[in-house]
C-alpha cells in the first residue's frame, strides 16, 4: 500500500473523532470546517514524522488541538479556550473513552430521529442542519432563548437514551 492510500485509510477512520474534538472547543461551524481542513493538510504534510507504533488517532487529535489553540490566538473575539491543563485532561479522555460503532450509531440515530414529533425534528434541523445560533432559532420560532435551550437539551437526552436502547437491542 502506498503512503497516500495508507494515510487516507487512517485519516478516514478517525475524521469523525477529529471533528468531535474540534467541535467540542469551537462552536462556530464555518470556523470548525476551516480548522478541520487545516488539520487535514498538516496531517498529510507531517505524515512522514508519524510513528506507526503509536495510535494514529491520538497523534491526529494532538495536532488538531494545537490548530484550535492557534485559531484562538489569531481571533481574539472568540470565547476563551480551555486552559492547557484541561485540554490535556480532555485529550487523555479522548484516548481512553471507547469509540462507538459509527455505522450502528448512525442507523440507530436515523430510527430515533424518525420517531421524534415533527416539531422537535424541525428544531433539531434548525440547530444542526442550518447551523443557526440559539437566539436566531428563538427569533424564527417566536420563542425565548431559554426555552429553545431547554427543548434542545431534552431532545438530546431523549436521543441519547433511544440510541443506547436501539444499539443494545440490535446487538
Amino acid at each position, binding site marked *: 500500500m502506498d503512503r497516500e492510500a495508507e494515510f487516507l485509510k487512517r485519516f478516514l477512520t478517525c475524521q469523525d473523532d477529529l471533528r468531535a474534538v474540534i467541535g*467540542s472547543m469551537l*462552536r462556530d461551524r464555518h470556523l470548525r470546517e476551516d480548522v478541520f481542513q487545516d488539520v487535514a493538510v498538516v496531517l498529510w504534510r507531517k505524515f512522514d514524522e508519524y510513528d506507526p507504533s503509536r495510535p494514529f488517532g491520538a497523534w491526529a487529535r494532538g495536532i488538531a488541538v494545537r490548530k484550535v489553540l492557534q485559531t484562538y490566538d489569531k481571533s481574539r473575539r472568540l470565547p476563551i479556550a480551555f486552559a492547557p*491543563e484541561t485540554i490535556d*485532561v480532555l485529550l487523555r479522555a479522548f484516548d481512553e473513552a471507547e469509540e462507538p460503532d459509527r455505522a450502528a450509531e448512525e442507523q440507530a440515530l436515523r430510527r430515533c430521529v424518525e420517531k421524534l414529533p415533527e416539531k422537535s425534528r424541525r428544531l433539531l*434541523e434548525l440547530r444542526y442542519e442550518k447551523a443557526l445560533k440559539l437566539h436566531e432559532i428563538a427569533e424564527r420560532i417566536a420563542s425565548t432563548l431559554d426555552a429553545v435551550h431547554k427543548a434542545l437539551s431534552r431532545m438530546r437526552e431523549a436521543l441519547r437514551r433511544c440510541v443506547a436502547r436501539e444499539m443494545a437491542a440490535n446487538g
Partner: protein
Amino acid sequence: MDPERFQHLLDRHFDDLLDEAGRAELERALAGSPERARDFVRAARFDGAIERHFGRRAAEAAAAAAARRAMEEVAAAPPARVPTPRPARAWPAFAGWWREHGWGTAIAVGVHAVLIALLLRVVVFRRPEPPQGTTVALAPRDEARFDEFRRDLPPWPSNAKDPLIAVPSVAPEAALAPLPGVTPGAGDGVARGLRAPPLPGIGVPAAFAARSAAERRRVLDRWAGADAPAIDAALVRAAAWLRLRQGADGSWPPSAGASDPAATALAVLAFLAGGDPPFPAADRMAVETGLAHLVSLQGADGRFRAGDPAVQALGTCALAEAYGLMRLPHLRDPLDRALQALAAAQQPDGSWTPPGRGVEPIDDALRTAWNAQALRAASAAGLAEGPPLPLVRARAIAHLKSRQNPASGFFYSRPGAPLRESPEFPLTAAAVSALTALGEGRSPEARFGLQSLRRAGGGAARPGDARPGETDFFLAQAWAGGGEERAERLYRGLAREILARQASDGHWAAGGGESNAYGDAGVTALRALALLAPCRYAADADAAAALAARFQPLELRPAAPGPPLIRARGSGG
C-alpha cells in the same frame, strides 16, 4: 459536582451559552474527575453524530430535489430543432460586433472626454481673490478663576511677551535659586515659589512618552477600540468635576472640612495623566496649586503627615510625576526628602508594615503597591538610579513574591487555599501591578498572578471588595503593563464597568471603606487613572522616540546642595 449540574453545564457548553463563570466551573469538574472528562468526550462525539446525521439528511434531500427538477425539465422541454443556416449579411454582422465589443469602446471614449474636460477646467480656472478688509475677532479668555492665584505669582521678567508660554532668559542656576526673602524649611512649599516657571531647555523623559495628546489618542484607540469616545467623554466630565472641587488652598478635601494629602495627590496624578505636556494653563494651575498644598503638608523629614505609608507613597508619586513632566525645579528638594522618607519607612522584610501590629493583608498589599508606583514614577523622572532605591526595589520585589500562593497564583492567600479563590482578587491586582511597576511584569510570579486574575473573571464584579476604586486602578495597571495575551479585551471590560458607574456630573461616588480614605474626589481620580492606565507609561521605544523628538534633550540640574541620597540619571555619578 452533582451529575445534573454537570449535565446542565455540558448542555450550555454545546449550545454555546456558557459564560466565563460556567466555563471555569466546567473546567474544574473536568480537571477533578476523569469520569467527567470521559462524559464530556461522549457528549462531544454524540453531538458530532447528530450533526453528521442531519448533514447527510440535508445532502440526500438536496440530491433528490435536483434529480426531480432535472426530470421535470426533461419532460417539459420542447422537441429539439436543428437551426437552418442563413447566408451572411454585412449589416447584421456589424450589429453583432457592436453588441459584443462596441460598448467598451464607447465607454472608454466617454471617460476620456470627461477627463479632458476636467483637466481643461482646472488649467483655465482661476481662484477668486479674497475680499479685502476681512477682520478676525477673538473672544476674550475667561480666566477669572485663575486671577486669585496669579496675584501670588512672582513678577515675570520684562522680556516675557506671554506669561503663560514664554521662558525667562536666565541661567538654570538662577532659576533654581529660592525666591528672595524666602527661607527653605518644613511646611513652606507655597512660599518657596512652586509656581515659578520651568527650567529652560529641558524636556520630558521618554518613559512619559504616552502622556502627549497624540500618543494617548493612538494608545487609547488601540486599547479601547470602539469604546474610546465614551472613555474620552468620561475623562472630560471627570476633569471638569475635579476642577470645580479643588479648594482655595489647592487641596481636594476628601470630605467637608477635612484635608488629606492622599486625595490631593490622586487628583494631581489624574491631571498629570490626562494632560498634554507642556500642560494647558488650566491644568497647570490646578496641578501647581495642588502640589503647593502637598508640599505645605511636608515636614523636614520628608513625611507629608503622620499617616499611613500609602499616603506617603501617593504624595511622593505625585511629586515625582510632576517633576518628570513639568520640570519645576523647586520640586526637587521636596521630592528628594520624600524619597528618603519612603526608603526609611521600608521594613527589613521589604514591606512598609511595621512588625507586631495587627494589620490586614489588604493594607500591606496597598502600601507596597503605592510605594512601587512612587518608585516607578521616580525612576521615570530620572531619579531612582542612586542608592538606596535599587535596594528598596529589590526588597519590595522579594516581599511581594514571598506573598504568592504557588498553587493558585493569588497573592496574600492562605496556604492550601482552593483555586480561583476570589477574596484575594484585590490583593493580587495590587501585587501584580506593583511587580509590573518594579520592572518584574514579565516574571513568572506576575504572569501567574495575571492568569489567576483573568480566570477569576478579570474585571467582573467583586463582592466583598472594600476598596473597589484602588482595585480598579491596580487591575487596569496590571492589564496595561503585564503582557497578558488578552489584556486589551480585559481592559475594555473593566473600562465598561467603570463607565457604567460614573455619575451624570462626572464623578464616581466613594463607598464603604473608600469614603473614609479618599472621598469622592480621590475615588474619581482613581477611576480616571484606571481608564488612562495604558497611557501612563510608554509601552514601546517607538512611542518614546516619537515624543522625545518633540522636546529638547533632557538635561537635569545638578544635585541639590549637600550630598544627595538620590541622584539623577546620567548626572555623572
